[in-house]
């Protein structure tokens, strides 16, 4: 085990996979940075420091620093994948998904199906998402709910450096297209990361805290919000079973239902707005499949039905927080 930040785990994983498999390639804006400038290549080394040094090691055929052309980035990744490569495409901000949605949704997600199962499109799209940086409505969104609803895509949200390594390795090796959501606020967090070959299969939730009074189902950045809420509630003798979904597509229904069968009370914590969200989707699944076990209506703690605001005070009000989760837990516990 080595201590490292999530951004280091991601960079190392990409480097390891590129060394292991000559078919792995990368495309994205400013992956190298400084191309065509006085500062020269690697003047930036990737704005998230998740591609530093890769161009130098693997060259421009495999580490492709692209113009600002999201449709061309994702479309090229699609074409390269059909031609037999394993592209990793980066969307510098997940919000830019709107620019290239056709390539993701109508193209990559549907190729295998439309072509009668005679193609594969092993593209990994890394999307940098999430609020908390006063980056305003077009650089802060948690757009994974929308993409989770799309058949043909897998949607992955690591919450720890170890999971980032295990899930990203799996994503790159996976033969289906994977959307890999990296939260800006998680890049700097540190944790133990297993050394050597390490994959985490999709569709397996991680039990973050074990508890019996209430189930918290969450993912991505909201995992740490739930951990803080659970730690505070534990001091009052309230124990939370905290589940990190890790992948919203496929969804580990079994782990969620098992926990709800035990606790009978559930709070869904999701950084995206509430309508047609992962939270509302999982709540519906629970109501549908574990109705008899429920002792209280499921509560949702999500962002509101609004864009992500800019000002500090507004953004804080927008985001789910430990106090909001604690309130929701109290509501489900008080229900008779």
């Amino acid at each position, binding site marked *: 085990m080595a201590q490292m930040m999530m951004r280091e785990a991601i960079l190392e994983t990409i480097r390891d996979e590129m060394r292991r498999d000559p078919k792995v*390639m990368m495309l994205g804006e400013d992956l190298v940075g400084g191309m065509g400038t006085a500062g020269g290549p690697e003047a930036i080394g990737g704005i998230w420091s998740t591609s530093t040094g890769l161009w130098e090691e693997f060259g*421009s*055929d*495999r580490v*492709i620093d*692209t*113009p600002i*052309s999201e*449709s*061309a*980035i*994702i*479309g*090229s*990744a*699609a*074409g*390269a*994948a*059909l*031609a*037999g*490569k394993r*592209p990793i495409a980066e969307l510098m901000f997940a919000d830019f998904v709107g620019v290239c949605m*056709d*390539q993701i949704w*109508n*193209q990559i997600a549907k*190729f*295998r*199906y*439309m*072509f*009668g*199962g*005679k*193609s*594969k499109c092993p593209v990994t799209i890394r999307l940098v998402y999430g609020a908390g940086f006063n980056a305003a409505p077009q650089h802060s969104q948690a757009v994974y709910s929308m993409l989770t609803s799309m*058949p*043909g895509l*897998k949607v992955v949200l690591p919450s720890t450096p170890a999971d980032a390594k295990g899930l990203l390795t799996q994503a790159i090796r996976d*033969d*289906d297209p994977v959307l890999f959501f990296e939260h800006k606020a998680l890049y700097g967090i540190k944790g133990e990361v297993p050394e050597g070959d390490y994959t985490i299969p999709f*569709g397996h939730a991680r039990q973050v805290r074990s508890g019996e009074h209430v189930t918290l189902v969450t993912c991505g950045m909201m995992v740490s919000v739930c951990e803080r809420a659970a730690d505070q509630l534990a001091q009052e003798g309230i124990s939370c079973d905290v589940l990190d979904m890790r992948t919203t597509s*496929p969804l580990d229904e079994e782990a969620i239902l098992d926990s709800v069968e035990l606790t009978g009370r559930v709070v869904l914590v999701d950084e995206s707005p509430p309508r047609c969200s992962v939270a509302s989707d999982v709540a519906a699944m629970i109501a549908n499949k574990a109705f008899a076990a429920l002792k209280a209506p499921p509560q949702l703690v999500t962002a509101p039905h609004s864009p992500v605001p800019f000002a500090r005070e507004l953004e804080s009000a927008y985001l789910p927080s430990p106090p909001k989760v604690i309130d929701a837990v109290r509501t489900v516990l008080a229900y008779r």
Partner: protein
Amino acid sequence: MQLSRDQLLQAYRRMVTIRAFEERLHDEIAKGEIAGFTHLYAGQEAAAVGICEHLADDDFIVSTHRGHGHCLAKGVDVKGMMQEIYGRATGTCKGKGGSMHIADVDKGMLGANGIVGAGAPQAVGAALSCKMDKQGKVAIAFSGDGACNQGTTFEAMNMAVVTQAPCIFVFENNHYSEHTGPDYATATATDIAGRAAAFGMKAWRANGCDFFETYDTMRELLDYVRAGHGPAAIELDTERFYGHFEGDPQRYRGEGELDRIRAERDCLTAFRRKVTEAKLLDDADLDAVEAETRALIDEAVDEARAAPLPTPAMVLEDVYISY
């Protein structure tokens, strides 16, 4: 370049196959035998075949909204395609894609597309894959005069130049983007190749109704791209013999326009005239190819009608490889 007798016969066979395939679909669709939207390629055969006769299975093409011709020119199975268009379980795409989504990756045919203009970036990606492999392979982005107005096409051209991808942009100007003329919809109506040139590519123009001119020009492009000059483009002036989709009343056509283009710009007629005048092939050779091809299409339709229908359980197959 002088083509051998076999090469000439193969090129003619491919063009006639496209024509016969499309004419038969036109008839069967009118009878109500085939569901959905179908966009026929007849009239443009010399373009697809003039380009694809230079390619091997491991060169890639990305097709358009009007893709049957590109599929057939790249060697996708005639019967599998017919079964697909008939919505049969045994079709090229098991009845999941239909007319607009025929693909055969093993033949280097990466897909026709329901979204006009979506293909060009994908061709750039396939070309980047070729560049990684360093085997001299190329990728072709077929686009029409409709797709040339999509931002994706501009992004793809810019990216191909920036990355020096061995990508060839083939613009087939058939003078109609759906039901609208290029004088209205394309700001550089008579000049699409110039757009590619503006992105820094060398661009050629050819008569897309003349197989030989298209074929010879494509040879120059291929030599240029394979020599490592990055991407290139060609604009082909061609004609669409049918409507945008089958059932299109084509009220936008001028008086006598269809008769005129069929009389003056039919690529099959031009091919026949050229090879018989030059005594490379005689009428009997060409008639034999036509008869064999018509028989193949009859067989393909009979087999498609008899082929098994997909079952409801197949809805959920092939969404993922593993989930």
